[in-house]
């Protein structure tokens, strides 16, 4: 069982949540993004063996989407937090 700490509701069994994929920010400048870069964004994954930053959705709870850092080798969740735009992702 994986335990996840929902920033709203606290520690819960991961069965209450839906996994939302590895953190994979959308290309910031769509018109300047090449086909190859789009294909990479859509299909390719880092699929990390180690601590991965990823999305979770508290489906059977408060409905919040949030980020978690989980070690995919041990399933230990290091931390969970709300998404905030990084400085370089703002302003387009």
């Amino acid at each position, binding site marked *: *069982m*994986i335990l996840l700490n929902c920033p709203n509701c606290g520690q819960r069994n*991961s*069965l209450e949540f*839906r*996994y939302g994929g*590895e953190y994979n920010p959308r290309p910031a400048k769509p018109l300047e993004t090449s*086909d*190859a870069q789009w*294909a*990479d964004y859509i*299909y*390719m*994954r*880092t*699929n*990390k*063996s180690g601590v*991965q930053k*990823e999305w979770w959705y508290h489906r059977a709870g408060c409905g919040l989407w949030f980020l978690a850092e*989980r070690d*995919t*080798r*041990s*399933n230990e969740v290091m931390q969970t937090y709300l998404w905030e735009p990084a400085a370089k992702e703002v302003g387009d």
Partner: protein
Amino acid sequence: MNEFQEKLVHFTWPEPKKSYDVVIVGGGGHGLAAAYYLATRHGITNVAVLERNYIGGGNSGRNTTIIRANYGIPEAVRFYQHSLELYQTLEAETGRWIMHQEKGILWMAHSEIGMQQQKARAAINRAFGAKTEFLTPEEILKVCPEIDLTGGGVWPVVGGSYNTEAATARHDRVNWALAEGAMMRGVHVHQKTAVTGLLMEGNRVTGVQTDKGPISAGIVMSAVGGHVTSLAAMAGLRLPIRTHPLQAFVTNHYARTFHPIVASTNLLFYVSQTARGEMLMGAEIDPQPSYNYRSDHHFLQSCAFRATTLLPFLRDLRVLRQWTGVCDMSPDYSPIMGKTSVDGFYITTGWGTWGFKAIPASGEQMAQLIATGETPEMIAPFALSRFAEDRLMADRGSAGTH
């Protein structure tokens, strides 16, 4: 042939050389089969298979061994039917008893739309060479009298597709037969040898770095199952693979014979009986990716609940063992085979939860690619380049769970 007639397998473990024509990374079924077909079909034997653990210790020794060809797109039906046929003759070819047993697989439908899908599956299967028919509930009962056609009052069985040539084979014996056949002809298999890096010259792979030193190679082929992303990264490649655990379990011995393989498209479980009489069951992958081999109780409970809904006799059995493998899932639920954008670096991956049945055909086709340098027509549609071309081989409903 039976167990008494069979001699022990003959493995030889030579010392590693500094250089091979071909280095295959990963001693699962796919790596061993490529080596076997290189040796038997092309006379290429200056080949090493490098396995970081022991051969068959990955998914090729953890799977539920279902061999079937009831896929949903033409290229896949043709490929899996070819693999199914190679399995039918593998015993005679290798002289090893792999316990191949034809059972037939039933895919239950529980709704009008599910029935239409199974009818379409039967039609496309027949069009491309696989022997699949559509069965009515009464016909299903003849194949599998244990089924509760009311589905516990919730999942009524309204029909199903039946791939009559579907089979099972003993996974370890398949791995061993291929390994032995390759070794007999001079192929080296090195266990406890992990590949830790790739030797590159510009855009060309020239060998591998291992925990026992470097080995140079004309061609390097990756067949490392769920661990493919990190191996490809050593060549600077990104892959569309997500590694998800898949679990399975067996019950104690069921005293009667249960002949077919039974699966449900809605309930997503499947079950067959092993040669020892145990009932072997599996279902869908864990929802989040992970490299963790731990099995969990939630899976056991939900899979057992669904299986007993259709097959109530399973309630009287007990769970003996449960285990997990980590699977290389592709986004379109089709395999990825062939060349990459890096010269001399070939891959076979995206085998997810369904690659045991593909071992002979993938091995044969990859061997042909290595021997000739030309991508065989049968696997060309499954090239890695399809993602950049936005040309998916979508077949989720057929890859299913096994």
